């Protein structure tokens, strides 16, 4: 054994979540989840609809609390991590505030954290540059396409440079072309700062292309069925999508999903 094991970014132990435990609408969403995510690792959660992917993500985010077990983020409770703003979050709907211009949307978390106006503006300009929308700071969200809005949402999630990024089907509403483009961009973005990512998706190829590991969940109750390593390394490009290893990993994920009864 090595003597020094680094603190994992996320440590989930024996976690279960039951909604409405005392009523007729009782739902056991998750049961017996054990999962560690290493710092700078990219982990995807995949599984049939309703298997608890979003629930798991929201447990890590401390938006809900587990019924059993513990969730630790960077060595402290998920609750403390949330209060310390350890993570940024992005959902399937970009969820930009319609009354704020694009730059001001990116600055929202900074504003809540009490940054000065000058610092906020500098950072939002920098983020707009990173997501390749430098000219759109002064636009309202409705003036942007769906893909552009999602880029702004990612810029907002990363604006305060959190160590962890939690994403719930962020590209789910985008067309295939935009989607692949955004996947490349996302990898560049998180590689730059060394962000740890937990990424919920429905797409097998998306999970494989992006992830170091793919976690396949089975439904009713949600459990971890398999964890698949994707040995594609750190440099992933458009060519990766035609790589032999990529096909092999994709097949592995597909098989695992078939076993849990997903019709994907």
């Amino acid at each position, binding site marked *: 054994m090595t003597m020094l094991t680094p603190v994992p970014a996320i440590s989930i132990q024996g976690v279960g979540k039951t909604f409405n435990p005392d009523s007729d609408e009782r739902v056991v969403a998750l049961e017996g989840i054990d999962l560690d995510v290493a710092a700078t690792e990219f982990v995807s959660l995949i599984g049939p609809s309703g298997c608890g992917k979003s629930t798991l993500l929201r447990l890590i985010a401390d*938006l809900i609390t587990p019924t059993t077990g513990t969730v630790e983020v960077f060595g402290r409770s998920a609750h403390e991590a949330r209060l310390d*703003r350890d993570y940024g979050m992005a959902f399937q709907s970009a969820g930009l505030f*319609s009354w704020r211009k694009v730059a001001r949307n990116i600055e929202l978390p900074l504003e*809540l954290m009490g940054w000065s106006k000058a610092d906020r503006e500098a950072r939002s300009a920098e983020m707009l540059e990173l997501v390749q929308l430098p000219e759109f700071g002064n636009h309202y969200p409705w003036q942007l396409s769906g893909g552009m809005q999602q880029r702004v949402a990612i810029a907002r999630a990363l604006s305060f440079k959190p160590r962890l990024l939690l994403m719930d089907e962020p590209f789910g509403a985008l067309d295939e072309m935009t989607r692949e483009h955004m996947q490349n961009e996302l990898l560049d973005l998180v590689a730059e700062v060394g962000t740890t990512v937990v990424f919920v998706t429905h797409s097998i190829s998306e999970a494989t292309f992006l992830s170091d590991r793919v976690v396949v969940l089975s439904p009713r109750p949600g459990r971890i069925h398999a964890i698949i390593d994707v040995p594609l390394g750190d440099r992933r490009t458009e060519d990766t999508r035609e790589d032999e290893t990529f096909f092999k990993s994709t097949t592995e994920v597909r098989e695992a999903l078939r076993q849990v009864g997903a019709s994907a």
Partner: protein
Amino acid sequence: MVAAAAQRRETAGRRRIQTGLAVAGALVVFSTLWEVYKLLGGIIDDRWPDILPVRPDNLTMPHVWEIAGSFIEPVQRGRSEILAMSLLKAAGFTLIEAGLGFLIGTVVGLGLAVLMLRSFWLDRALVPWINISQTVPLIALAPIVVTWGRTTFLGDTVSVALIAAYLTFFPVAVNGLAGLKSPAPEALELMRSYAAGWSKTLFALRLPAARPYLFPAFKLAATLSVVGAIVGEISAGIRGGLGRVILDYAGRYTTGPEKLYAAVIAAALLGLFVFGMANLAEARILRGENQES
């Protein structure tokens, strides 16, 4: 984008012209109907008296041109001030009371909405009372409030404003609460992920999200504030405002019915004016935020 903005402005301009034409057209149609009723009514009334719901004679229904003409005639014989000027002054007086009532009503309404959002029990406790409040006839309430004002430092103007506020707070409270509750669960979760507390969430998310709900309430409240102010003036017998003018001309109806009509038109125009102001504020404040505007 610039072209798109210009296009939008052009469409907005065209829409304004269309609205103006429609309003003028409706006025012409209404005046014509009025006069046609008088003309045909006169014939019918001669043959079969008492079958018409409204008598078409010149005392009950003055001619449109007499009402219009009365605006530029002297208020009283021997005085140089024309009726329009006198009505404008009265409208200004009423506008101040209505404006104050609108402000008070908005603050109270918003305050109630925030309280009801904050506390489940306050929500439960307040909702029935807020609804009951609007079933109490204003006419019954007005003398009580005016008496309060006369026995304290408040005075008549504030009393009338309070009566107006009694009407205006209601739509603001009801729509305000709906608006404060309107953000999507994801938006609330986003705020939570930033560890934003209740008041930060209120100011950064709930209140801005409530604005599209609040503006229709403000428009309604603006016109209600004029109604409330006039009713308040009438029950308090306060001089200077449109309420008193209406009361006076009603008392002297037989000697100049067109003046009462003119005063009523002035009250309607004042209501239209405050509605227009609220509309303008909405357009300015929400400008650019939505595709439609």
